């Protein structure tokens, strides 16, 4: 059973992509994960396939996939850039995405190729309007 939107957690200090990933600016890098809404839709995540460090993707590209027993969901880049770090802990603990999607459930760190793209991402309220 999925939760009502009001039961989910959406934080203020990140930016949201309409494909249900989030981006958090950390200096000149961007940390990326999926939103609480996305993890709730997926239910119990049993595997997260992530890209290799050094690969580059454009905004909107599929960079990996999250798999639960019921479904497989593509993960989409909120910004263009090069992958500089991946969350290797998810290999052993994919449930972190369910339990802490904005914390230990982060997925990749990107060196953004076009900072303007950050301005095109959604604020919390805009994202909430999209999923309501």
């Amino acid at each position: 059973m999925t939760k009502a939107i009001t039961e989910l957690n959406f934080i203020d200090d990140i930016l949201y992509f309409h494909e249900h990933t989030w981006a958090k600016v950390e200096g000149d890098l961007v940390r990326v994960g999926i939103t609480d809404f996305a993890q709730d839709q997926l239910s119990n995540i049993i595997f997260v396939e992530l890209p290799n460090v050094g690969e580059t993707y454009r905004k909107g590209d599929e960079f990996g996939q999250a798999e639960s027993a019921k479904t497989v969901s593509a993960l989409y880049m909120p910004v263009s850039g090069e992958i500089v770090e991946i969350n290797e802990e998810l290999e052993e603990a994919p449930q972190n995405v369910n339990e802490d999607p904005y914390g230990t459930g982060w997925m990749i760190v990107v060196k953004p190729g076009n900072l303007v793209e950050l301005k095109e991402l959604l604020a919390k309220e805009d994202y909430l309007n999209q999923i309501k």
Partner: protein
Amino acid sequence: MSFTIYTATGCTRCKIIKQLMHERGIAFEEQDMKAEGKEAFQKFYAANRKAIFRGPDGVEFPLLHDTEAGNIHQGIGACVAYLYGGGKLDSFFSVGTLHKEWVDGIHVSGGNSEDAKGFLEVLRYIKKTNNMKLQLDTNGLNSAILEQILAEGLADVIIMNVLGPKELYSQILGKEVDTAEIEKSLSLVSKFPEYKFQTTVTPVVRGDGEIRYLTTKEVGGAAKLIAEATGSMKNPYLIKLFKPKECRDERFKDIEAMAADALLPYRTAARAHQVFVEIEKA
């Protein structure tokens, strides 16, 4: 043998396999992916995900892991077959995608005719002992098994893949085929309470070594073969698109897919012999 069975809470098929293992005195460890076995299933999935089939509704349960032999069987048919036959019945079964009381992924032509006894025992266990409904498929080989299935009422639905016209059968299957057996199967299939013939417009390795799709004339020939063997032009008959990406034969993976509307002339060619022919919708 040492077994772990991965199940989902409330999964009827999982209960059937566990019951069979109890009946046969086979020890096993159960991991329920929705309960205490969540973490164990997660690890098993991560280590074996390339070998685990996902249908339209996700991972199909149960998953039976023979930890000594290192093999995995998935779905009710394949699991029962492995417990009955220890591997020799494997090629009669695949995972299947039907749900509730229906079981598919049962291939009459998939295995050796010498293993008919074991194959039929599996069908009886699933259908008669556990009241499931069976959808079987055949390409016409193993007609003697088909005859037994018909006699015992072991199939609720049967689908026959008519590979092409008579003269192409050996070429398509890559081995010598007695076409009289194919004709016998066509006739038997038409006697089941619910049946369907279908032809996939597949690529064929031609005599000159080139790979070309079945022609409209050849599919017309398949429809004619059905008419002659069954004595009827009014059989349910479906013409399907070949999907290169889903093909296991490496030779055909890179062939260009046909557009859905390319099937229209095939339907026209087949209609001369089977008036109820339909084409697969894209």
